[in-house]
């Protein structure tokens, strides 16, 4: 069988989710191609060609594809779908946006956010905010699957697949107007090795920045937030970790002033080590934390900064 992986990219950079989706794809088949959707994204295609185990890279380039418009992305994938038995898409906001369109047009049931490949037609996916895992077997001849990147290791680099250009697609009845991206020099939340997250306890945007950001910088960590902190305007929406925000699985997740609601845990409970700092010793976050410190963050964080400095960090 042949598998098409759609790359996660921003026209300039190939994102890590692609490597992880390739790992899932290689469990299905040895014949894995990557499709890069973008505008002026030749560098992304060249980077994709270096992933080991990839047969070839297809580059579809058009203005609409550069702006993440689902109609154009789905059409570009559909134009190639005839040659593949499975289409795997990283479960990013962009991937989740167009993959179900592709499935509907092919008249197949999409399989969302798989975390395990059991066999070529059987997959495991979380349901109910990650409180249950469902093993499903697909009877569709062609499969459209989104892949939760945090559940798979990244495929190695070292390949040299050929790059071919295929036709782009247009946006139909949708027009891109503008975008406003949060600028950050920190690691990307979904791919970071360490994540420092703040919750409602911070009380204000200023306090969130004062407390969370220096600690994140000291640890080389990405910054996350609970829904409460985002809703209260302490942190941008894009920082939200949880069922409705980002799913992360870093080596170290530090939850500060976060109670640990079901919806938040859905986004971080697969982290390797979880640290909770909370003054409420009954907070549910302590039930999943490997190391818990019952303390007010106002005293605990300066002490933690000092202890890190003392340990040479």
């Amino acid at each position, binding site marked *: 069988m042949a598998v098409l992986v759609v790359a996660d990219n*921003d026209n300039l950079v190939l994102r890590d989710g692609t490597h992880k989706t390739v790992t899932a794809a290689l469990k299905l088949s040895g014949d894995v191609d990557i499709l890069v959707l973008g505008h002026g994204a030749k560098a992304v295609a060249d980077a994709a060609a270096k992933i080991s185990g990839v047969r070839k890279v297809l580059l579809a380039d058009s203005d609409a594809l550069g702006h*993440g418009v*689902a109609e154009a992305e789905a059409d570009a994938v559909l134009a190639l779908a005839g040659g593949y038995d499975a289409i795997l898409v990283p479960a*990013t*906001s*962009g991937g*989740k*946006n167009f*993959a*179900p*369109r592709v*499935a*509907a047009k092919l008249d*197949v*049931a*999409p399989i*969302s956010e798989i975390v395990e490949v059991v066999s070529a037609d059987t997959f495991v996916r979380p*349901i*109910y*905010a990650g*409180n*249950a*895992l*469902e*093993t*499903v077997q*697909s009877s569709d001849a062609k499969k459209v699957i989104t892949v939760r990147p945090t559940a798979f290791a990244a495929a190695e680099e070292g390949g040299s697949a050929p790059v071919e250009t295929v036709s782009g697609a247009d946006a139909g*009845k*949708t027009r*891109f*107007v*503008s*975008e*406003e*991206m*949060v600028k950050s020099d920190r690691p990307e939340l979904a791919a970071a090795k360490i994540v420092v997250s703040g919750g409602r306890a911070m009380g204000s945007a200023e306090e969130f920045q004062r407390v969370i950001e220096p600690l994140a910088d000291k*640890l080389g960590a990405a910054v996350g937030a609970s829904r409460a902190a985002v*809703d209260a305007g302490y942190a*941008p*929406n*894009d920082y939200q970790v949880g*069922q*409705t925000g980002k799913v992360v699985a870093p*080596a*170290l997740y530090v939850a500060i002033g976060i109670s640990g609601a*079901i919806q938040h845990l859905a986004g971080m*409970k697969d982290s390797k*080590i*979880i640290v909770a700092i909370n003054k409420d010793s009954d907070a549910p976050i*302590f039930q*999943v*934390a490997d*190391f*818990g*410190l019952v303390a007010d963050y106002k005293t*605990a964080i300066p*002490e*933690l900064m000092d*202890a*890190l400095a003392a340990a040479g960090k």
Partner: protein
Amino acid sequence: MKVLVPVKRVIDYNVKVRVKADQTGVDLANVKMSMNPFCEIAVEEAVRLKEKGVATEIVIVSIGPAQAQETIRTALAMGGDRGVLVTTDADPEPLAVAKLLAAVIAEEQPGLVLMGKQAIDGDNNAVGQMLSALLGWPQATYASAIEISGATAKVTREVDGGLQVLDVDLPAVITADLRLNEPRYASLPNIMKAKKKEIVSKTVADYGVDIAPRLKVLKVTEPAKRSAGIKVETAADLVSKLNTAGVL
């Protein structure tokens, strides 16, 4: 403009779900059910559009068991005008739901479909996109702001990395994200009034849609439990533990 809002009856978001011992699914017996939170946001947005004079009629649609009527009543109490209930005891997959909704839409001819971005039970995040693909309409998912002017909608979307603004021709399918609005509570007088609003009952057979599942659920299991952690006394203690664990 007529606005159609699909709503889903799901397990209440505060309930800690239990996986059945025989691994056939999640135990829904005697569990509190509610309207999916994202559907509430979609209903609220439709009602606000009506209050602004943009929407003329709000049709609430639900597909599910007879009890889904309660979910429709809740939406009618929030400000919906009438309901359509497509009853089925099967738990249709997103593909089947999208096809049934497309059939309802062919009858109703709304100018806009507003729905939640995902249901908190299946966590699929697929029906809105699939519906718009089946209808050949544009889609705007994960909306945090909607501005309708004439025959187009300007939609601000929550995407990885920030916000994106799209302009889509109507009719379109727009899916609601958390930040779109704060849904209102239905007042007692409105709950009483909602009892008088019409809900048309339909069956899957009325629409001739094949809802046979394409995915066979082999089992439903509990995720691996995390081993119990420890409480540390001081920040210095914490740092030394993390150093030992090799994560710093």
